[in-house]
C-alpha cells in the first residue's frame, strides 16, 4: 500500500445521506477483477444512462470534478454491503479521502486497508464544507493526516480524530498481515490455551 501524504485537491460534493455500497459499486459488477480497472464503475447507475452515456448532471462527470480526490457527503456514507470493491472503485477513480458525518462500519474499516482516508466530521462542519463547495465550485481543500486536519484556503482548520494504529498504517503504507505476523507467538499461545481448555470448536 502506498504511504498516505498530505495533499490538496478539488472537493466534489454528494450532498445526500445513506449513499450505500450498491450505489457506489452496483452488485452486478462484483465479478469484475481489479485489473479491469474498477474506477470506471464508480457510481455507475448515477453516472451513466442505461445506454452507457454520461449523465452531464452527475458531479463526477463535470470537468472540474473529474480529477477530484476528495468527496464530501452526508451521514452514513458507505452503508450496506461489506463489498470492498466500494473502496477499490473510489480509490481507482482517484478518490483518496471521503468526508462525512458518519460512515457504514465495514466500509469505514475497509478504507484504511486500502489507502483511503475516511474523515468523520461533525454534521455542522460537513454542512459548512458543503456550503463552501456550493458557493465556490471548484474550491480545493487540504488534507493533512499527520496533523489530523482538513482545511480550506484561508479558512479554518477542522481537526478530525483517528485511531493511532490506523493512522500509523496509512502513513507508513503498512502491510497489516506482516504487522500481525509479528505477534505470531501470542497467536500460537492463544490457540494452544483455547484448544487445551475445550474439546470444541474443532
Amino acid at each position, binding site marked *: 500500500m502506498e504511504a498516505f501524504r498530505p495533499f490538496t485537491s478539488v472537493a466534489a460534493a454528494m450532498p445526500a445521506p445513506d449513499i450505500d455500497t*450498491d450505489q457506489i459499486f452496483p452488485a452486478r459488477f*462484483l465479478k469484475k477483477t481489479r485489473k479491469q480497472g474498477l474506477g470506471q464503475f464508480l457510481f455507475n*447507475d448515477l453516472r451513466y444512462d442505461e445506454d452507457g452515456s454520461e449523465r452531464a448532471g452527475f458531479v463526477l462527470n463535470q470537468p472540474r470534478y473529474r480529477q477530484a480526490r476528495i468527496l464530501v457527503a452526508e451521514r452514513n456514507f458507505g452503508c450496506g454491503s461489506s463489498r470492498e470493491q466500494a473502496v477499490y472503485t473510489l480509490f481507482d477513480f482517484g478518490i483518496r479521502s471521503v468526508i462525512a458525518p458518519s460512515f457504514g462500519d*465495514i466500509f469505514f474499516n475497509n478504507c484504511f486497508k486500502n489507502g483511503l482516508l475516511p474523515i468523520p466530521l461533525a454534521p455542522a462542519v460537513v454542512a459548512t464544507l458543503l456550503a463552501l463547495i456550493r458557493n465556490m465550485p471548484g474550491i480545493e481543500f487540504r488534507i493533512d493526516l499527520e496533523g489530523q486536519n482538513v482545511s480550506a484556503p484561508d479558512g479554518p482548520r477542522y481537526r478530525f480524530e483517528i*485511531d*493511532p494504529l490506523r493512522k500509523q498504517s496509512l502513513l507508513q503504507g503498512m502491510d497489516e*498481515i506482516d504487522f*500481525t505476523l509479528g505477534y505470531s507467538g501470542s497467536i500460537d499461545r492463544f*490457540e494452544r490455551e483455547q484448544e487445551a481448555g475445550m474439546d470444541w470448536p474443532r
Partner: protein
Amino acid sequence: MGHSRPRTLTEKIWDSHKVLERDDGQTLLYIDRHFMGDDLLPDVFDAVRDKGLRFRRPDRTFATQDHYVPTTSRDIGSVDDPERRAMLEAVARNAAAAGITFFGMDDPRQGIVHVVGPEQGLSLPGMTIVCGDSHTATHGALGALALGIGSSEVSHVLATQTLWQVKPKTMRIRVEGRLPHGVSAKDIILSIIGKIGVSGATGHVVEYAGSAVRALSVEARMTLCNMSVEAGARAGLIAPDEATFDYLQGRPYAPKDDAWQNALRSWRDLASDPDAIFDREVTLDATDLAPMVTWGITPADAGPIGGRVPDPAKAANAESQERAAKALAYMGLAPGTPFEAIAVDRVFIGSCTNSRLEDLRAAAAIVDGRQSVVPAIVVPGSGLVKRQAEAEGLDLIFRKAGFEWREPGCSMCIAVNGDYVEPGQRCASTSNRNFVGRQGRGARTHLMSPAMAAAAAVTGRLTDVRKLLGGR
C-alpha cells in the same frame, strides 16, 4: 479468573478471544470460524499466497457457492456468462488448494453461507465468527459474535486467524410481550429499523432480548439478527438458551457426547450479567406490532400494512423531504396511497433472511389451495432446506399454486446470478435490502415476511396476511 464487573454477552465473548490488546485499544481478536461464499474476489487468496504465507487454519474456514449459482439448474455448464462461471470456479479451486471444506453446487449441503453455517452446526454459542459478507450477523442468533468483514480482512484471517478490532459499543433491544398472530420476526426487525433508522445502531453490537425474542424459534432469531446490519450494527446476537441447544444438538459439526456436555456447561454462562451496562437500550412492545412492508429505498422506509405511503411534504425537515420524494419517485408511488392498493408484478421468497424451512412453511400455509396471480419464485436457502421442504410436500403446494420451485442460492436478493427484477417492475420480496437497483436496475422492492409475500402473490397486491389466515 474473577470478573467483578458485570459484563454483557458481547464483552464475555470479546474477552475470551483477546489475543492481545494494545494501549490504544486495538485488540487482536482470535477468530473461531470463518465462512466464505463465492462473491469474494480471488485476490483474497493471492494476497496470502503472493507473500509466500501459509493459510493458518484452513480447518476453521468453510466455503460454499451462493451468489452466482443458477437456481434453475445444478449444472455449472448452464452458466454462460464467463465472468460468473469464473467466480464459481474460483472459490471451488481456491478452497481445494487451501484445504478448506467446500460445499459446492453438487453437494446437498450447498446453500447461502448464512443458512449453511447454523444448519451444519458450524456456528456455535460463544464463538467469534467472520465472513466477508455483511449479513454475517445472522449467526449471532446462536449466541456468537459474528462480524461481517471486508476482503482485506478475509486475507488477514486466512493468514493469521485473527482480526484487529476496537471494542464495539453495545446496545440492547428488548422486545417484550406476545407477538400477535400473523406477525413474525421479519416484522419485528422492520419495526426496529423503522424506529431507530438505518444508522440507529452504527458502531454497536446489538443484543436482542425480552420475552418476545425468547419466544422466537432459532430460525426466527436468525431473521432478526440477519438484518441488524440494516440498522448499521456491527453485529446482532441473542443469548443462547434451551431452544438454541435443542436446535444444535445432533447437527453434523456440533460437539458430540462428552464434548457436547462440556460445551453445554460453558454455553449456559453465555448471557449478559443482570446488571451489565449497555451503551444504549431500546424497548419495543410486541403486542403493538403488525405485519410490515417497506415503501421506499432503505429498510427504514417501513410501515405497518394498514398504513399509507407517507407524504414527503410532511417529513420533519428539508433533507428528509427530499429523500422521501426521491424514494417515491424511484418506487413510482404517490403519497397517501394505501399500502394495500399497491399492485406487485412478481414475488421472491428466499435470501438469507427468509429462506429456511419455517419461512417456507409460513409461506406455504398461505399459498395452500390458492393461486399466485403474478410470477413468483421460491428459492430455498440450502439443499438441505429444499430436501426437507420436499419431504413435507411444500414444493407441491407452491407448484400447484403456480410458483416456481428453484435450486438454492442468493438469487433475486442481489440479482447477480441471472435472476432479476425487470426495470420498473415491483417485487414483493422476503430479502433484506430494498436499495436502488438491488434486485436489478430500476427494480422496485417491497420487503416483507414470507407470509406477507405469499399473500401478495395470491392477491397480486400488498395485502395484510391476517385477512388470509382463517384458521391457518
